[in-house]
């Protein structure tokens, strides 16, 4: 039958066209970085002379241990300086190291720099380890650090965090001196940022234009292949400077945007570890045999920001009334299925971090007092408002629903508007909003959490909030270098922010991970880093 014949022909054509596997194009494969000046062969390095297992050939090595993880999105690119959003840094932090790093409790720990010293208010020196090499075998020197920091200041979307670095001097082969323009407390934190503050190799950048598609870092894993939108394959860096890391031989990161599919793949044994972003799946996975769900508090907070330049939100009493009237626990119970913490005694820094202020101003919702305040402010009959939130992540839609109901009880008629994230950013920049519900993630230092948003000159101060006392406290917190001193300023600042409520701090969500029982050694860092993949082992 003609139609059948045509059909078979088409199918045959399709199968034939599929013999081309979608890999060897720019965004996908990575060849050995074109840098080896000394002509050293690809994967060997000076330290591990004689180790046969260096050249990765999983097919030949039957005992290859592979960790297969599922992340919700792909990286935007492999360049750690250009792409600094969390999803991208989850990839780049495995391939690169920074001068410093964080331990499991987000305290500063040595990274590529084994020690550091503060010479004076504006001068710091860092002593590099002498046993570090890039993936192509080239040893790490102070020149690389200088080059990297300068590149960050030029290209990084987060370059504002590194702006106080005035110059970087190479003192000798393994010593770097950083000269600041003014005293800067968060310096060490920012130098430890995974991905963002990576140290890269200048020769690789120059040979390739940028690092979007190649990776020659010092990190625990080496990039083998990046199939954009599908998966990324990495192998262990045998010459990694931390003993016995990484434990697994191979790491494959699969992109699984759909949480049901991710959960299904975990249950079917196709993946060993997934990040969960839908609380609905948490219960299902907890019940499944052979699987574990790990929960961990993260330095994330969800907030409702007011446009303080627009009535009625320019009246502090109105903001305070809402702060007082909201039942944060109820939001956690309904939106997060009870998995998370209400921000009743904290602002941007959650409990467990050094900047947690423990100021239980709003731990008991008081609708009557709230009503009273509204009355005083002249809004006893309530008022209409619009709450915007990003549509891209379901959690915000879930959070605003109980908020709307609670505001109703105060006489406030809130309309909910889901806005696509890109559009939302534009509206925020133009000041076209009443209130927005959203969240921040992974900002470890209170300077990063607060300065740009609440300082009157802050670049992200969409609500146009301005308070000279807050400004002063934030500036002092930034300039001070002793932890206790900084703590004092940030406690003050957060208390004042909670009292003035330009932004309501709503909840601290918890992060969840599903993993097979054969996976051990994973610890989740509160900033959302997955560096601990280097310490994970997979039982056969």
């Amino acid at each position, binding site marked *: 039958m003609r139609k059948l014949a045509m059909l078979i022909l088409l199918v045959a054509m399709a199968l034939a066209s599929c013999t*081309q596997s979608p890999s060897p194009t720019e965004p996908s494969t990575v060849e050995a970085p074109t840098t080896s000046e000394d002509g050293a062969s690809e994967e060997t390095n000076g330290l591990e002379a004689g180790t046969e297992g260096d050249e990765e050939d999983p097919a030949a090595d039957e005992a290859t241990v592979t960790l297969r993880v599922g992340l919700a999105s792909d990286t935007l690119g492999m360049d750690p300086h250009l792409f600094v959003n969390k999803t991208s840094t989850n990839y780049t932090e495995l391939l690169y190291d920074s001068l410093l790093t964080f331990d499991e409790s987000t305290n500063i720990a040595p990274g590529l720099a084994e020690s550091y010293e503060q010479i004076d208010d504006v001068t710091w020196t860092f002593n590099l380890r002498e046993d570090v090499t890039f993936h192509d075998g080239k040893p790490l020197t102070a020149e690389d650090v200088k080059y990297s920091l300068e590149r960050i200041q030029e290209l990084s979307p987060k370059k504002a965090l590194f702006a106080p670095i005035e110059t970087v001097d190479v003192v000798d082969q393994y010593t770097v001196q950083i000269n600041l323009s003014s005293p800067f407390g968060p310096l060490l934190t920012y130098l430890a940022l995974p991905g963002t503050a990576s140290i890269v190799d200048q020769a690789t950048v120059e040979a390739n234009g940028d690092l979007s598609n190649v990776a020659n870092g010092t990190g625990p894993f080496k990039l083998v292949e990046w*199939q954009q939108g*599908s998966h990324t394959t990495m192998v262990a860096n045998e010459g990694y400077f931390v003993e016995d890391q990484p434990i697994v031989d191979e790491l494959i990161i699969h992109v699984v945007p759909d949480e049901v599919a991710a959960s299904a*793949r975990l249950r079917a044994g196709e993946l060993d570890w997934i990040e969960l972003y839908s609380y609905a799946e948490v219960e299902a996975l907890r019940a499944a045999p052979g699987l574990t769900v790990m929960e961990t508090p993260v330095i994330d907070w969800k907030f409702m920001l007011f446009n303080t330049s627009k009535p009625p939100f320019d009246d502090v009493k109105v903001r305070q009334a809402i702060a007082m009237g909201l039942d944060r626990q109820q939001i956690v119970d309904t939106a997060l299925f009870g998995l998370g913490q209400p921000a009743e005694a904290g602002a941007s820094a959650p409990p467990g971090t050094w900047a947690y202020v423990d100021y239980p101003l709003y731990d008991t919702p008081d609708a009557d007092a709230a009503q009273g305040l509204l009355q005083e402010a002249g809004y006893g009959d309530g008022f209409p408002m619009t709450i915007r939130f990003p549509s891209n992540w379901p959690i915000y839609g879930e959070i605003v629903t109980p908020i709307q109901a609670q505001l109703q009880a105060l006489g406030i008629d809130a309309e909910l508007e889901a806005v696509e994230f890109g559009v939302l950013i534009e509206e925020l920049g133009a000041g076209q909003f009443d209130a927005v519900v959203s969240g921040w993630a992974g900002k470890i230092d209170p300077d990063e959490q607060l300065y740009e948003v609440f300082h009157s000159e802050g670049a992200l101060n969409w609500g146009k909030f301005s308070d000279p006392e807050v400004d002063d406290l934030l500036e002092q917190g930034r300039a001070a270098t002793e932890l206790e001193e900084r703590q004092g300023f940030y406690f003050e600042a957060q208390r004042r922010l909670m009292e003035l409520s330009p932004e309501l701090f709503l909840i601290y969500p918890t992060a969840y991970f599903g993993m097979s029982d054969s996976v051990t050694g994973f610890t989740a860092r509160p900033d959302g880093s997955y560096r601990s993949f280097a310490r994970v082992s997979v039982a056969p």
Partner: protein
Amino acid sequence: MMLGFESTPQRVAELRQYFGLDRPWHIQYFEWLGAVLQGDLGKSLLSGARVDEMIMARFPATLQLTLASMFVALSLALPVGILAAIYPRTMLDTVGTLISVVGLSVPHFWLATLLILLVAVRWELLPVAGYVPFAEAPIENLRHLVLPALSLGIAYFASIARQLRSSLMEVMDTGYIRTAHAKGLGSRAILFRHALKNASIPVLTVAGVQVGRLLGGVIVIEQIFSWPGIGTLGLYAINQRDYPVLQGVVLLVAGSFVAINLLVDLAYPLVDPRIRHS
């Protein structure tokens, strides 16, 4: 979007200027169009990779999925449509209609999830998701293809089946079919040699249009099954505002739709001699 929440007005302005996005849009458009006519689809704003290479790397996966889904759709539509037409108003017809309506009403992503949970997780017959290039492992490739193709195929076979049924019924009532009966030709011969060919024109048309819907449905299905095709590429481009990539994808999809319908038009004379001779 590159800057995310970190976007300050100055940085945004810098980037816009760098990418030439601050020029009047009609100028940007004509420049792009001119480049396309010369074969240059531009480069990704985010990774700097060539758009045509990015698309070509992922197109085979989508092509395979689309064709497989069409295959499933036709495999379901042909028997259901034919049987319903031959035995109208019987139990068979009713069941066929029922199946078609269910297929029409069920959202393909829901079907996908259902298939995953049943076939992959509970019965462990097939992998949940993912993709293996055909060249690397043909069997694995096909195993991963089954569920996504079924999700799309089942959701889209209904219109084809319905059209086939009604066209066939119409044709079987015509004069020349009755003549064939009178000449003594068996029912099967009549069916396959005459009736189907004549009934297939409107069916082909419907199938061509359905491909358009399939191309749309492919986006969600690719997302669910982590199938690295141009559907997910387009979705990423939308989310990240990677305009050159998005433009390339839309161009390709629109072009494919036109090409397929052209093929359908060219297929008419193959099927219906009346058209051939006119």
